[in-house]
């Protein structure tokens, strides 16, 4: 039960800071809230027997992607959002309605489908042992893995091309 408690606390923290992220007007604060949220999520990952994913989550998301966000925010010196005077009442009303409807539908879907997970098949192995995961990744999913490496290269080149100034090397 300690695990469940820890999970609920971590998930609650993640949700709370996600809310902070959405509500906060300043993008830098949003990013920081999201860092905390992601860190809490990493804790939940550990509790869900996925320590490698947790580490990757922290290294890649918190350590790289969000730092990149911060870097861009600082580079562009993005100011805080200010309340728009005319606003967009139609959009906002519709959005709020749609979000509520979505949340309700999601709850209903969880109620009817979520619990129908099949009973566990084999005995779970030691979550700390990364070898089975690695074996799976480099055998069954090798092609996806290689495709991903090409995708990353393409993204690298694309980002470079997009962000460089005209005429600079």
């Amino acid at each position: 039960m300690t695990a469940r408690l820890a999970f609920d606390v971590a998930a609650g923290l993640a949700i709370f800071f996600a809310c902070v992220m959405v509500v906060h007007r300043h993008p830098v604060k949003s990013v920081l809230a999201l860092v905390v949220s992601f860190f809490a999520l990493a804790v939940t990952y550990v509790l869900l027997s996925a320590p490698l994913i947790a580490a990757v989550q922290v290294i890649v998301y918190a350590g790289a992607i969000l730092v990149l966000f911060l870097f861009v925010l600082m580079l562009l010196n993005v100011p805080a959002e200010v309340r728009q005077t005319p606003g967009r009442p139609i959009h906002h009303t519709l959005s709020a309605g749609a979000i509520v409807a979505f949340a309700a539908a999601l709850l209903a879907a969880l109620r009817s489908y979520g619990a129908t997970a099949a009973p566990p098949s084999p005995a779970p192995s030691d979550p700390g042992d990364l070898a089975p995961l690695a074996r799976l990744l480099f055998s069954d999913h090798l092609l996806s893995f290689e495709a991903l490496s090409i995708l990353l290269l393409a993204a690298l080149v694309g980002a470079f091309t997009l962000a460089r100034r005209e005429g600079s090397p």
Partner: protein
Amino acid sequence: MSGADLGIAALRVLAPVLAILIVLPMLQWVERRGAGLIQDRPGPNRVGPFGLLQPVADVVKFFMKEDLIPSNADRFLYVLAPGLAAFAAMTTFAVIPYGATLSVGGRVIPLVGADVSIGILYLFALTSLSVYGIVLAGWSSNNKFSLMGGIRSSAQIISYELAMTTAAAGVVLAASSFRLTEVVVRQGGSWFALPFRGWNVVPQFVGFVVFFVSAFAETNRLPFDLPEAEAELVAGYHTEYSAMKFAMFYMSEYINVIVVSALTVTLYFGGWTLPGLSPAGIGGVLLSVLVFALKTSFVVWVFMWVRWTLPRFRYDQLMRLGWKALLPLALLNLFWVAALVVWKVL
């Protein structure tokens, strides 16, 4: 879990932290005296014999100074940033094994804070978080020099982390484990028979060089201390900081140096192992701790040595070195290690 077990566990974790906190003020003295030595000047020599009490004076000074917060700063983040930096630095030490496994009274105690299966990943996860301290300090100060420092730091750390991780991947590949204790044990074997079980620095010299250079960038030490380059940015991200907050940045920098040195020793110089030393009995284990401490000290000294020897890189040179030299070299090293593993040399 008995009380004794808990106590031992706490001791295992806290011992290295305490050791670092004790050594920390000394390091500052060593650094300044070393600078004097290298630059042919006395260095601090007024407080106590050979200026040995200078660190004490400094600590007192830090405590006594007025703690200023700029009026336009983001107070919360401004206060949070130095704590974050120090915290990230200190927690990193938890997974580094600092001695051989101790067997006392039927208890087996590995001399490491926490022997986790993803030790190296944990290390990199926390190092990558350490950037937040600097970036937030730079941004929350609301000062253009600080902001520049923060921006530089984020770009620099993201860039060099890549090379550093890739270089370390070679070690992981050779040890076929992320577990740092295993990395160390693996380096305590045969030097002259195949498969090679000596220090990693021998087969992976290129990886070591990449890792070590990246380590300088990761810790913002000269020649890569662009986030605080005093000639351009006054003092970079900590321009506005004073008193204990400044001291925490100062501390975290030294802690980072120690951690990175310890990591270098662990990954490439056999950790606490020494050829010919078998850590049997309490004496042997203590000896292994001593070996580890000496190796780490030496690497720390190299950090200082380099600081007072090399000039600072220009920013574009820094980026070019990271992306066009170190990263390809690290990849090359990875291929090399993979080949060695396939050829059963490692």
